[in-house]
């Protein structure tokens, strides 16, 4: 019952080439009550990100005198997986919440909002491979939608290994049956890595290739993030130079 992960034409089980991204759709401003929000579909992932803040910190002793505290909760709905997921936060979700927060933090100008909290809530309504990367992409768009000062967006994409071949953006099947997964997030305009994780055995050569695949994937996600924000704030597409003159 094992899937053919890579066929003799070099195509993957869902027909993608090795360096092809799954279809990505990003929508900005989907929740009325949140200060900023975004919805992302990344392959079969369906994820909502909501940002509340800057706001008063509760409990009060958590407030920082010189900057905002960024808090993040990544949560999977019980119906998001093949078998029902217990709604209580798992150790996996706690770890992912932490690395997502640390991936976003370098981009947010926290010192502009002393003594406040900025909350990022992520709800995975349906999960596929790469949900943490999709979550990061959605959160950073939601932070921008909330009007929070940032020095860059954070874009994210994973590379991995199936059938001893480095590929871009693993889905669920490839994640389970493949032999390596390397999520990466970065600030594209600063060329700085803000999230990196890896499991699976990669040779030195494969590591370099996976790294460059993931960077390339990140850049494509960045374009889609920008387009989604432009669409909400400027209608269709980026205003051209001629129009603004």
């Amino acid at each position: 019952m094992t899937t053919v992960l890579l066929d003799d034409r070099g195509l993957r089980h869902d027909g993608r080439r090795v360096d092809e991204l799954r279809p990505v759709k990003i929508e900005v401003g989907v929740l009325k009550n949140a200060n900023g929000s975004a919805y992302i579909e990344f392959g079969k992932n369906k994820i909502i990100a909501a940002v509340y803040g800057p706001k008063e910190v509760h409990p009060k002793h958590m407030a920082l005198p010189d900057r905002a505290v960024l808090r993040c909760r990544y949560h999977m709905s019980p119906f998001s997986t093949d078998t029902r997921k217990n709604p209580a936060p798992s150790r996996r979700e706690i770890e992912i919440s932490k690395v997502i927060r640390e991936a976003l933090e370098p981009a947010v100008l926290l010192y502009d909002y002393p003594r406040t909290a900025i909350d990022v809530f992520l709800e995975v309504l349906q999960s596929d491979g790469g949900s943490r990367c999709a979550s990061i992409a959605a959160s950073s768009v939601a932070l921008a939608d909330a009007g929070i000062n940032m020095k860059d967006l954070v874009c994210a994409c994973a590379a991995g290994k199936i059938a001893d071949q480095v590929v871009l953006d693993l889905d669920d099947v490839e994640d389970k049956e493949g032999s390596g997964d390397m999520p990466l997030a970065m600030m594209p305009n600063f060329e700085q890595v803000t999230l990196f994780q890896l499991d699976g055995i990669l040779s030195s050569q494969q590591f370099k290739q996976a790294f460059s695949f993931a960077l390339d994937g990140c850049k494509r996600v960045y374009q889609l993030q920008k387009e989604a924000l432009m669409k909400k704030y400027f209608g269709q597409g980026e205003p051209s130079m001629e129009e603004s003159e």
Partner: protein
Amino acid sequence: MSAVKKSLVVEQLRRNQMIELLAQGKRMDGRGLLDYRAIKIETGIIPKASGSAKVTIGDTQVIAGVKVETGTPFPDTPDQGLLIVNAELLPLSSPYAEPGPPDEGVIELARVVDRGIRESQMIDVSQLVIKEGEKVYAVFADVSILNTDGNLFDTTSYAVVAALLSAKYTKYEMVDGKLRPTEVKEALPLRTIPVSVTIAKIGDSIVVDPTDEEEAVMDARLTLTTDSNGNICAGQKGEPGTFSFDQMLSGADTSRMKGQEIRNLLKEATGYTG
């Protein structure tokens, strides 16, 4: 997880001082940027455990104990034994550690150490099956952190690896559908020695094996694990700072190089020759 209480002013002053020193290639404790503190590995210190090890790096001290028991395999891997790695930050380990459920830092620590050992395929779990789909061996590696002075990731990982390398477990047999212990004791089926190497970015400098004081002011942390063949098998970036692309790639080289040195230490301490 830190034993250094964070004070904004002191932290900033110490960070500035550290960055000045690092620019001259020096560290507060006199080490070079890519030097580990003294690593001490003792095995067999808890005879009741199937395998055990105490590892100290500088003033960081941890004990790992391995217990091999029998259990039921996961439904999706009926032909594989189990490996469960866990770590606990004991309240006696620092003035700021408190009893209670583990915080996110300790959960991350346990999961990153587990990942390094699991993903390297150090243990050949396919050989830990008593009866497929019904009974397998379950390898529990539990770590108690006794004293913290930075680099808990590597210290914990080396302790688990040393305990696994030196472990002996009782073989069981199936008699009339029941498990019965035998007199036979065997070493675990091992394939490789994973070694994690943790680097910290402070300002523009990269150091290995950060102390508590360095961790309190670091921008970001990167733990990369390599196997005996020099492949990279696990990784985790932590803390809200960033790494440049070059720093990431050269981090992989550093991990491979330092990893080999430490792998030899682990072999020496455990007498493992595989």
